[in-house]
């Protein structure tokens, strides 16, 4: 038999090394830019807290950094953000979970093949489109029902944010439910369970951690959402829980100040970073929690 000549492995080894170096550099770049951003955020924030006490910032109920007398209580912005988040969650969680259940458990294959990409496209719509939709469609609708509603109001923006985050919930929850092995479903069916019971007792509990993680991610996304609230929620920092009033969120404030001509290095300028840091810590915490849930789920079966 003929001797087979193998190509030398040296050339391959060199290629492997080069690829490894390139990938390492790319990885390091992303890590260092992230660290750099966080670092500059924290640095300016520290400068801010040299002039304003942390206690005033975290417990004060008035936010008037540009108006005399100035107040730096961030609670009105936090309340505004929370209002948006709660309204958005009331929309995105039930509708997102409902469509995930429908797609994973009830929809015939053909329907799923069409609907799933549609939902995913929805996730790619720029948020400015949702903001426009809130202003021109949702707000007039609300004002038809409650005529005393402000032109800019939390409800309209919250609904738009909710609609925008539906695909986040539905897509991640659906993936998790689809990953539940059919053998488990069959086990329940063979004991005389109905479809609803199988979904409720077997599919959802098995996929629960990912479902919860999708809720948290949607909330985290709602906290960070900027364009919609800047367009439709108003710019009046107000400690209120009335969704029909104009409010301001943390992100809304940041946009307002960044667009205006606040002098570099001024105290008002530094408020951006303090609010930004708070925002970062909130979404970061939520993302960590959500990762924890996903990991817990991986261990489940």
């Amino acid at each position: 038999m003929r001797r087979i000549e193998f190509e030398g492995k040296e050339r391959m080894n060199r290629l492997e090394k080069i690829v490894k170096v390139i990938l390492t550099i790319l990885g390091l770049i992303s890590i260092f830019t992230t660290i750099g951003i966080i670092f500059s955020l924290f640095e300016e924030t520290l400068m801010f807290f040299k002039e304003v006490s942390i206690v005033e910032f975290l417990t004060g109920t008035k936010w008037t950094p540009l108006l005399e007398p100035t107040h730096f209580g961030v609670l009105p912005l936090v309340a505004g953000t929370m209002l948006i988040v709660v309204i958005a969650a009331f929309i995105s969680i039930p509708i997102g979970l409902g469509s995930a259940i429908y797609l994973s458990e009830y929809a015939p294959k053909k329907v799923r093949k069409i609907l799933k990409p549609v939902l995913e496209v929805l996730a790619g719509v720029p948020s400015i489109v949702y903001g426009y939709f809130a202003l021109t469609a949702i707000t007039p609708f609300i004002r038809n029902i409650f005529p005393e509603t402000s032109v800019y109001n939390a409800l309209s923006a919250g609904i738009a944010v909710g609609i925008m985050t539906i695909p986040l919930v539905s897509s991640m929850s659906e993936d998790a439910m689809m990953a539940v092995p059919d053998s488990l479903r069959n086990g329940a069916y063979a004991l005389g369970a109905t479809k609803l019971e199988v979904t409720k007792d077997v599919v959802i509990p098995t996929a629960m951690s990912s479902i919860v993680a999708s809720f948290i991610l949607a909330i985290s996304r709602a906290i960070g959402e900027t364009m919609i609230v800047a367009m439709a929620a108003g710019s009046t920092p107000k400690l209120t829980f009335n969704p029909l009033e104009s409010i301001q969120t943390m992100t809304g404030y940041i946009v307002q100040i960044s667009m205006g001509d606040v002098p570099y290095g001024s105290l008002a300028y530094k408020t951006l970073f303090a609010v930004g840091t708070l925002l970062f810590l909130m979404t970061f915490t939520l993302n960590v929690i959500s990762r924890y849930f996903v990991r817990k789920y991986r261990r489940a079966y």
Partner: protein
Amino acid sequence: MEAILSVRNLNFYYGDNRALKDINMDIYKNNVTAFIGPSGCGKSTFLRTLNRMNDFIENVKVEGSIIYEGKDIYSKEMEPVELRRRIGMVFQKPNPFPKTIYENIVYGLRKNGVNKKEILDEVVEKTLKAVALYDEVKDKIYKSALELSGGQQQRLCIARAIAMQPDVVLMDEPTSALDPISTMKIEELVLELKKDYTIIIVTHSMQQAARISDYTAFFLNGEVIEYDETSKIFSNPRDKRTEDYITGRFG
């Protein structure tokens, strides 16, 4: 001999693929019936038609009838959910729910409105004893069923099925994922259970069919080639193809 299930002219299609061809068979009460045959010949498909587990597969069609307690199980009078309570099933791969051992066993009962703790406790103990699992797990009843070994999980799945006090238990190659010792335990269990239940078992092992079954059906390409008492099938098969299969000449 009393037939508990009577299959008449049964055809089954996956789309255009006719997977079962004109099957006629009586399944006898309190006996163990084994289905043997090369893989892909329709054993699992046939087993699933008996408790309508094929309903969950899209684009399938059933023709013919299966009479159970005087009713065709594919007629409108028969509620599939109700049918599955009476005809239980154990699968090839153990599939306990990611719940406690206790909740696995009582799941079916709870779904049928049995929630009294005394009753559930009693059923758990009795069924665990019936599947010879009680001594091994009695301290872990409230722990996750996923902590059990494969063989224990499969016995738990059998316990879960008989907790419903079904008439018939269908088993689709219940030992194919298990080691020899667990396999032996399940075989002993099947022989024990046939006093109270009618058992239909798909197996790829002819020795297993010979050891535990009273009746054997040999399947080939969606047809039942031969169906008779197990002793006759193995000692004196009428069809050449059955003989070839059991003597290991093909399959």
